[in-house]
């Protein structure tokens, strides 16, 4: 009954019906599950990271843990998973089956190897199976094989460049993505190394090494395996700000295609991730938490956003925000003050606490009327009060060169 907007994109020469792809993770680790994901409307899959036959993968359970408020339990998801237990012989078959079932969709596969022969063998076999794209995991938080076991490949500039070269040499014209970790001193250096190695693009980024929590009664880490635990790869909404930073830095400094990943939980997150330079967006935690049906709102939300903004294609968003990102010393100094929108205020007093104990004591509290009063003389415009107001009754007023502007949080 309502017009459907075309939200297809071109990603490294591959046509995607929408920018949303299932990343290398449990949702793509079983043939039937990946199949259902594609059927539900996801534009493509990257099959969970595989390796050569002689590499045993010993998984340990429980594998997952999380943190978040009651209402939305999974703000951050931790896992101690490894790469897939299925080896390349299975994955080759799956690529063929999925490609035949979904010729219009992107069927990608993720690989990890130790020696040059392994990496190149994996590539040749996937190419023969008809894969559309190869992603190399240089960033499994549980460490990689070969070079420096236990350490992520992408944490070494030299190894990153060298292995990228091996893979691209074997892949020839099949697009190659290198999946990196944000856990490095200089992300731009890594991106340069990927580029020098000849890859077509970067997947930024994988999960982030973390310790999800500690049981305060038993002192066991989460997840606890008979009392013992370790570091988890963190994913989900908690890591989105880190992903945005990683992608923005790469996009601002290196001319390379970016596949955005890490913390995307809605079409809005996807738009933000594309606005800082990603060409498409991969998802793992969202479908793991709420299922493949989440694609419906991703597509519809993006389509409406594009129409409302007057954009023709999702590709018009790519990098839109980069021009507004500056280093601190380059930022302007507007005259900024908090302003109360009286009719919206419900009198909870949270802004008072925030300013009084964590700001500049610029808010006075009238206990009789239960209303805050902002003193423009004392307010420096830090915007802390605005962060805590539950009803968006505080906005920041900024003046620069005689032009008055309001900075409002829009959610």
């Amino acid at each position, binding site marked *: *009954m309502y*017009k459907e907007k075309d939200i297809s994109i071109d990603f490294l020469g591959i046509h995607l019906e929408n920018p949303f792809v299932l990343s290398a993770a449990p949702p793509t680790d079983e043939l039937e599950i990946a199949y259902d994901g594609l059927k539900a409307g996801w534009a493509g899959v990257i099959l969970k990271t595989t390796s050569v036959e002689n590499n045993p993968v010993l998984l340990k359970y429980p594998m997952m843990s999380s943190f978040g408020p009651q*209402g939305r339990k999974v703000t951050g998801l931790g896992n101690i998973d490894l790469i897939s237990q299925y080896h390349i012989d299975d994955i080759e078959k799956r690529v063929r089956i999925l490609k035949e079932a979904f010729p219009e969709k992107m069927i990608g596969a993720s690989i990890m190897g130790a020696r040059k022969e392994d990496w190149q063998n994996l590539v040749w076999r996937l190419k023969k199976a008809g894969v559309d794209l190869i992603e190399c995991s240089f960033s499994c938080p549980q460490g990689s094989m070969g070079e420096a076991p236990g350490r992520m490949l992408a944490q070494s500039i030299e190894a990153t460049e060298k292995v990228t070269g091996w893979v691209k040499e074997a892949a020839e014209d099949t697009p190659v993505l290198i999946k990196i970790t944000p856990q490095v001193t200089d992300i731009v250096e890594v991106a340069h190394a990927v580029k020098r190695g000849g890859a077509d693009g970067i997947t930024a980024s994988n999960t982030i090494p973390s310790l999800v929590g500690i049981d305060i009664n038993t002192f066991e880490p989460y997840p606890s395996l008979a009392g013992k635990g370790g570091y988890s790869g963190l994913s989900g909404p908690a890591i989105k700000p880190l992903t945005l930073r990683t992608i923005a830095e790469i996009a601002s400094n290196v001319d390379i295609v970016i596949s955005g990943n890490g913390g995307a939980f809605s079409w809005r997150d996807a738009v933000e991730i594309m606005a800082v330079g990603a060409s498409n967006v991969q998802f793992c935690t969202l479908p793991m938490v709420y299922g493949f049906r989440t694609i419906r709102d991703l597509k519809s939300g993006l389509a*409406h956003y594009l129409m409302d903004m007057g954009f023709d294609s999702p590709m018009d968003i790519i990098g839109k925000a980069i021009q507004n990102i500056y280093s601190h010393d380059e930022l302007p100094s507007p005259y900024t003050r908090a302003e109360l929108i009286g009719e919206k205020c419900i009198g909870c007093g949270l802004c008072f606490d925030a300013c009084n104990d964590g700001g500049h004591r610029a808010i006075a509290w009238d206990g009789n009327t239960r209303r805050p009063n902002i003193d423009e003389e004392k307010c420096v415009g830090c915007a802390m009060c605005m962060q805590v107001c539950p009803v968006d009754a505080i906005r920041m007023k900024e003046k620069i060169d005689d032009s008055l502007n309001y900075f409002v949080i829009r959610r």
Partner: protein
Amino acid sequence: MQTTLSREQALLEAERCLYCYDAPCEKACPSAVPVSDFIYSIKTGNLKGAMEIIVEANPLIDICGILCPAFCQDVCTRKQIDSTVRIRALHRYIMENTDMEENLEIPEATKEKVAIVGGGPAGLACARELRMMGYRPYIFEKKKIGGIPAQEVSSARFSEGRADREIGFIKKHFAIDVINKDVDSIDELANGYAAVFISTGLADEQDLGIPREALEGVYKAREILRDIKDGRTSKAGKRVGVIGGGNVAIEVASALKAENPDRDVEVIYRRGMKEIKAFPDEIEEANELGVTFQFMAIPKEIRGTDKVEGIVVTRAHLGEPDESGRRQPEPVPDSDFFIPLDTVVIAVGQKADKVFPGIQRKENGLISVDENMMTSVKGVFAGGDIVRGASTIVECASDGKKAAEKIAKYIEGSVGNV
């Protein structure tokens, strides 16, 4: 009285939704509104997407956002934690903050003409769905397009302008024409219709079956509601007794009290508070207006010579449950008492009128249909209250939708055309 949610309230309410898999609310909704999906879209700020989901599923969603009994809320999983998500209020929030005309895409009307008799919820829904499939629906309506929500539901609950929004939307975009005509027989319809859908609702009201019902001062509930809705002063006096315990009884009682707060309005019901069929919000509203209740009172006879002077009722005692599962009132011997009244309003149910000769009916006057919603006459389909008996807007909307599918199949030759 339910009101519109603010943006903050809507977002918080939406966050309460657990987004259940195989969501019970969606199964409970007669129009199968994808509740979890539309609320999910509210959470992500995709209001327009949410609007499209609910409008596509339920042709009367704007009206349901205010008037639906919300079957969905009865089964909400969230109740097992605290209380139901206010799904109906979220419909309303969306419909009041989006424009259902935006991005509308309707196919060319190239297919057969279909006659729809009765422009209430069932007829409107059927017209919309037929038009979406390329058919040309013509609606025949004897009074005002919109059926009961437009003609009788009191303006306090559902304002005139609000009714026009969605009814006007369907009329403007989906009905080829609305013809003002009282159709008594299918033969009256001009030739050239490939099928007919009867959705005339229940035009008449049940009698009480006690002495002196014809006396001056005795009225039927919907008659009063129509007067008030049309802007006329009702004929009711100063001391009104409303007989019945359904939604219509409560509605007319509230409307009469609101019309004149000085008038005494008492609902007289033969069972107890627990057995009352009306929805809790409606009862609460009546209470707030000052309507009073006389429970466990079985009307015996109306008293008066020229006009009503009062009613004699017998005290009831609750016996065994009947088919509806509610306990049956039984008269307590020698317990008659008199309630002085100048007006008696009867609200004990609707019934079908006797038009459309040749179409098979059940004993209670409702039209009989087969599994394809087709009546005893080939090519003539029926749905809504005239088939179900008194029901609800969302059920009638769902009937209209289903009937459109069956009619399309029939015209294409794959249903009922043997």
